[in-house]
């Protein structure tokens, strides 16, 4: 029973309330008792003072008469008057021999023993005046107070237990639904989701969050499955070629043939390792652990460095690579990954846009976004395939024969995702326009990272 959290909570609150009732009852009882006693004492004191006054004005006989009169009145206090020698003069309490002050006197009456609280005062001339009253009346009052609190205590406990049971039943039922869904998922039903009640309370919000987590996990598992089968499928071709080359080296007739076959095999191995390195890097980026290394990066500085590094090679190949970036545009990011992303985009454009292609790298502000665009004037990508070119190993039909692992743009997509940036492809008519849009940026120029800032050519490279 006490393994239910809500029940345990309800029990705790019930106990806390019950304890408060007990404490409150005790305080009430004590103050009531003190007040009653004070009132009782005051009443007896006032009566004693009144009779002492009577003694001074009317003398002994007046007091004796007053005592006898009052003793006869039903429901009044009890009195007694003793002579200085202790002889009883008048009243029920006469002759009981107590000294002056407060005392308790036990009398037996027709109704049984009676306990009286008595105030004894000494009148002038040595007469002892006793005034007493039954203090059972106080006890009765106290008992009433006590009983009231007892009922309250019982009520609190009963209500607490009932409330706790009700609460725990409700929570228990919903948690059961959650763990039922979890069990189903554990047992392989990945489509199961936790039912929502639509009340938008904490449990509903928790269930919604868990459902979103499950969606994400399912997506990741799906992509993992996809990657594994892609890897298996895509590595088969180069591995087959490697095997053929090794076989050729074994059957080679001339040393030159053997050397060629072995060199070819080494190249195949390097290409395979390259593919693995690419996959590993994408996996690391997707794991998202690099966000800790984020710092301000000026996209203009970064683009200038990359263009500066690749423009000479492009020129040698009869292509042109130009930079269009006028102002500092800093985002929070990982400079190393952003450089690799831009390098991949530039290499991709140079490789696929063909001879005499013109490629430009633009860094510009579009509304609230900082955009890095790589635009070429090559054959472009058919609209139907634009989404898929960011998948691992996806290659257009016409580029199957060019070297490349098919991982470059997948890495671009992964780096963009890590930075919360969106990648869009557009038709540059002719050519392809790849845009990476970062959601937030600052105009404040940054130091960039040293190696890049250092190497930035003074003028745009064309």
């Amino acid at each position, binding site marked *: 029973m006490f393994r239910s959290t809500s029940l345990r909570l309800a029990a705790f609150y019930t106990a806390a309330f019950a304890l408060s009732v007990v404490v409150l009852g005790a305080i009430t009882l004590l103050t009531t008792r003190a007040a009653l006693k004070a009132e009782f004492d005051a009443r007896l004191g006032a009566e004693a003072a009144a009779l002492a006054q009577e003694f001074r004005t009317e003398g002994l006989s007046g007091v004796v008469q007053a005592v006898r009169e009052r003793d006869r009145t039903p429901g009044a206090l009890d009195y007694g008057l003793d002579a200085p020698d202790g002889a009883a003069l008048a009243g029920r309490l006469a002759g009981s021999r107590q000294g002056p002050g407060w005392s308790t006197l036990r009398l037996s009456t027709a109704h049984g023993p009676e306990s009286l609280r008595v105030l004894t005062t000494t009148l002038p001339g040595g007469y002892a005046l006793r005034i007493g009253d039954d203090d059972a009346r106080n006890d009765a009052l106290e008992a009433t107070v006590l009983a009231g609190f007892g009922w309250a205590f019982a009520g609190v406990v009963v209500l607490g237990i009932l409330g706790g049971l009700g609460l725990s039943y409700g929570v228990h039922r919903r948690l059961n639904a959650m763990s039922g869904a979890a069990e189903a998922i554990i047992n392989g039903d990945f489509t199961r989701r936790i039912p929502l009640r639509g009340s938008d309370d904490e449990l509903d919000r928790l269930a919604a969050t868990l459902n979103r987590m499950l969606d994400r996990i399912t997506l990741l598992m799906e992509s993992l499955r996809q990657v594994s089968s892609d890897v298996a499928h895509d590595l088969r071709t180069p591995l087959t070629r490697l095997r053929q080359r090794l076989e050729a080296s074994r059957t080679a007739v001339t040393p030159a043939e053997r050397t060629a076959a072995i060199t070819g095999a080494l190249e195949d191995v390097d290409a395979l390792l*390259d593919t693995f390195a690419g996959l590993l*890097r994408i996996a690391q980026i997707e794991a998202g652990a690099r966000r800790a290394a984020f710092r301000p990066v000026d996209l203009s500085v970064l683009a200038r460095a990359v263009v500066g590094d690749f423009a*000479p*090679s492009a020129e040698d190949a009869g292509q042109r690579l130009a930079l269009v970036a006028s102002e500092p545009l800093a985002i929070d990011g990982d400079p190393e990954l952003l450089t690799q992303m831009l390098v991949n985009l530039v*290499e991709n454009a140079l490789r696929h846009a063909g001879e005499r292609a013109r490629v430009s790298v633009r860094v510009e502000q579009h509304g609230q976004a900082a955009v890095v665009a790589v635009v070429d004037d090559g054959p472009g990508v058919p609209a139907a395939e634009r989404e898929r070119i960011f998948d691992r190993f996806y290659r257009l039909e016409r580029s199957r024969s060019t070297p490349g692992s098919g991982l470059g743009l997948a890495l671009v997509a992964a780096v963009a995702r890590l930075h919360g940036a969106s990648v869009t492809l557009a038709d540059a008519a002719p050519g392809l326009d790849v845009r990476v849009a970062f959601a937030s940026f600052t105009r404040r120029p940054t130091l960039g990272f040293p190696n890049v800032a*250092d*190497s930035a050519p003074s003028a745009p490279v064309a």
Partner: protein
Amino acid sequence: MKLLVVEDDREAGAYLKRALNQAGHTVDHVADGREGLLLAAAESYDVIVLDRMLPKMDGLAIVRTIRASGVKTPVLLLTALGGIDDRVEGLEAGGDDYLVKPFAIAELMARVNALARRPPPQDAPTALQVADLRLDRLARTVTRGGDRIELQPREFQLLEYLMRHAGRVVTRTMLLESVWDYHFDPKTNIVETHMSRLRAKVDRGRARELIHTVRGAGYCLREDA
């Protein structure tokens, strides 16, 4: 040179030892981290080649321990972990260079040579001179035989790196990592392109070439042919 190779894979270790022996180095090879630590502390080596993941004692822990005990021998870390943060971790622990497995043996040789006799950073002179080629790091000027040579910033960095490693082979990967700060392999031949432009500026029309291509390994800037 006297080298210590700590590598737990027997076959890989034996291969390294043989290759380094052939290159004229004396090599101690141990397969166990604790043994490696003892040797590193007791003997005097020119370079320690250390596998990052070892049985009994982690390679990073060894580097930290020998650095803490004041041993300044250059350490080349070998690792199967190619992660971005793994590299930083390795260097922060006190490693001097980091090479991801698998690697070409020529790459390892070049890095071992670059690490040995590496001048301590504080001794880096403001001017470097090889034959009649002079590079002033403060004024950022380069002259050859008194003639001023104008270089792009990247070409300047490239030449500075070659001159600092004068007489030793530097590989394409070493250049990418140190000059470009690229810790990935671009498909474009940017190193070759920049190198050929640099050579055109430094060597063209000169009686003696200083920048040489080392087949299958990389480049070397040296006085003699």
